[in-house]
């Protein structure tokens, strides 16, 4: 009995937490989080829940190509959202494509975060010349639209690879390209937070007792910069997914053999004039829903984690 009470009260305490309270009282956040959760689970469980494996050529039958969605005239109940021009099930390709989009997004944000936070903390902690150099580079990069930087890095990366490795490594090139585009955001936020933290008494105290700089940075400053970084990372995830889709849509990103959502939209675009709307529309809808819910979640986090807005 007592045990139950205790767990109850723990649950109660959890619910009473500011952030959790804010979450459950913001319907938008709840919906966005649920959709994001479902999307990410569905994407990662794609091999288990997708009706077909679109990457296994042995499962594809060309005779089933260009079938409309199940509810339209000529549709087949075997393919809920219809098939593409090669006879691949649209629902399955979207699940697998979403998986690649999300993976690329997360990896790119992680890379950008790693790079940005490292440089930002160094910049903020050491100040002076180091700070000037790093921040001016960040400023310069911020003046150029992100997607252009990504296209540039992606182009250089692809050109540097030998032809036969290009397709295989395309996904990593895209991750690096988007990651390298993202870092200034993280650097600025991390630097700001570091500047604030570095002035606080406990850091001064740590310095006085002679702790090495690396310990101070890792143990005391870094954890305290993570809150704003997390907000940026969530919004950044939505942006990274869009950036990947843009690159792929332009034919610069993920190759059609392992399509992401952006690649699917590009490939489907070819069939828009001939009335095969489902090949491009469904991946587009999936992309919009995914990005929209991640963005809403990021927005809510920004509000909830920012004490000044409360």
């Amino acid at each position, binding site marked *: 009995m007592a045990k139950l009470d205790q767990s109850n009260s723990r649950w109660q305490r959890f619910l009473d937490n500011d952030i959790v309270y804010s979450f459950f009282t913001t319907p938008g956040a709840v919906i966005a989080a649920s959709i994001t959760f479902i999307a990410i689970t569905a994407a990662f469980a794609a091999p288990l829940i997708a009706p077909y494996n679109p990457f*296994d*050529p*042995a499962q*594809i*039958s*060309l*005779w089933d*190509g*260009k079938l409309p969605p199940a509810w339209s005239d000529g549709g087949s109940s075997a393919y809920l959202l219809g098939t593409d*021009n*090669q*006879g691949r099930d649209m629902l399955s390709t979207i699940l697998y494509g979403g998986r690649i989009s999300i993976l690329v997004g997360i990896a790119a944000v992680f890379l950008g975060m790693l790079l940005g936070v490292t440089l930002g903390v160094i910049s903020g902690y050491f100040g002076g010349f180091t700070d000037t150099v790093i921040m001016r580079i960040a400023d310069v990069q911020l003046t150029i639209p992100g997607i252009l930087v990504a296209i540039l890095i992606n182009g250089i990366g692809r050109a540097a690879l030998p*032809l*036969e490795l290009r*397709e295989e490594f395309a996904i990593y090139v895209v991750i690096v390209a988007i990651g390298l585009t993202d870092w200034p955001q993280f650097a600025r936020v991390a630097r700001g937070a570091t500047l604030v933290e570095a002035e606080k008494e406990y850091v001064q105290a740590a310095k006085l007792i002679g702790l090495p700089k690396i310990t101070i940075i890792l143990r005391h400053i870094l954890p305290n910069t993570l809150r704003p970084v997390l907000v940026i990372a969530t919004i950044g995830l939505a942006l990274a997914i869009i950036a990947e889709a843009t690159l792929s849509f332009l034919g610069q990103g993920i190759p059609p*053999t392992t399509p992401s959502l952006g690649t699917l939209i590009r490939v489907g*675009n*070819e*069939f*828009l*004039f*001939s*009335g*095969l709307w489902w090949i491009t529309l469904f991946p587009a809808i999936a992309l919009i829903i995914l990005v929209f819910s991640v963005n809403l979640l990021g927005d809510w986090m920004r509000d909830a984690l920012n004490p000044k807005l409360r």
Partner: protein
Amino acid sequence: MNFLKLAKLFSVALIMATTANAENVLRWTSQGDALTMDPHSQNESPTIAFNGQIYEALVARDIEMNLVPELAESWTASPDGWTFKLRQGVTFHDGADFTAEDVVFSFNRALEESSDYKEQVKTVAKVEVIDDFTIKLVTDGANPILPNTLTNVYIMDSGWAKANGVERPQDFAAEEETFSVRNSNGTGPFMLTSRAPEELSVLTRNPNWWGNSMFPGNVDRIEYRPIKNAATRVAALLSGEVDFVLDAPLQDLKRIEATDGLTTKTVAQVRSIFFGMDQGVDELRSSNIKGKNPFRDIRVREAFNLAIDKDAIQRVVMDGLSFPTGIITPPGVLGNTPELDKQYGFDLGKAKSLMEQAGYADGFEIQLDCPNNRYNNDEKICQAAVAMLAKIGVKVNLDAIPKAQHFPKIQKRISDFYMLGWGVSTLDSHYVFSYLFDGEGSWNGIGYNNARVNEITKLIETETDIPKRTALIDEAWQIIKKEMPYLPIHHQVLGWSMKDNVDVPIAADDHLRPRYVVFK
């Protein structure tokens, strides 16, 4: 006085302005650009078609594919060659006169090592100048189809070529860059005014062209802008940005036809699409099978043939606009017969057991090289083939790349498994044998070498007895049909789309002929 001058200037400006308005500009697009402006460097249809606006050959084909005079006015056969009467008073774009000397020069140039037209002109042993406007092409024995083979052999100005150091054709496979790659000087109806490869090429009408009063065409300027993406090409036509799309996707033709102000034309093309399987090397480069070449086993070649469902490709990928086939030469070409044209069929069970018998029950891995901006739905056909071959255990890695990088792989014989299309400009099988089957053929990327086929290729160059010659051609095709060195898919259907204020007659060789294009 000053006032008079000014008035004159104004009137001149006014005249210029009105003529500029009345100019008929044909804005033309298709998926890929001409590979080079050098007329003897690449025997590739879009390159030939584009250069054919600038350069001319001795004889040409009209819209119905009949032979018609071009730089030669008439020709007569004799047992040891053909005599051509050249057109008089023709000048090159730079003003130089066209004479017999230019013909001699051009034929010698087409025989150079770096030329891609050797197979077409190598039966010409010598070009004899009889007078300034008469030449005799001396052949080793009578060549009954010589004029047919000359429609793509363009004539250059010898003086211009010497002055610019381009006496030898550009070596395309070696990525050579010469003056003639971006500059041109022909006798044709259009002059190249600007050239940005893969972007925009502008041709303007040659006011001194000999045929100006003989042909109905009234195009003053051609702007050629390649657009790789198929949907973008259609969008450009729908929005009025271009007047003529050579290769709108087949699935969009209905939509274009239904649009006000636009029209489409279709015709069976003289072009077959097929896969090549390299049998010439001891070990395939991209395969996991080491120490032997699976394609040397006819059972593997037959299994591949039976595993590809050509009817499915026709129905789904080509929207019905193709003719599945069993021979890589279309009807209309001497040598194609209904019996040969029958496809090998689709039989997965037999294909699997053939693979098993050959010792590849678990299949193998191989790379398929495919162009992505050349033929109707080229990349999509390859994708479909990947899925079909997976069903007999063959794991195909598809490498779909632009034609400018794809074709050298075939000519250098470094591709294991590739897609190619072959149009037959001469309408005679000799053209197919000499390029694709002869052991020395420059587009024989599969290393096929059959003594009898080689012999027949040689024999039909000089055999003048038509029934005997036809029988020889048939014999060669029977051998090929049995040995299956290539994997035939289908003959293409052409679909041209245009605005309905311009009449662009469609030709079965997919060559635009602006001399017949009339703006209404």
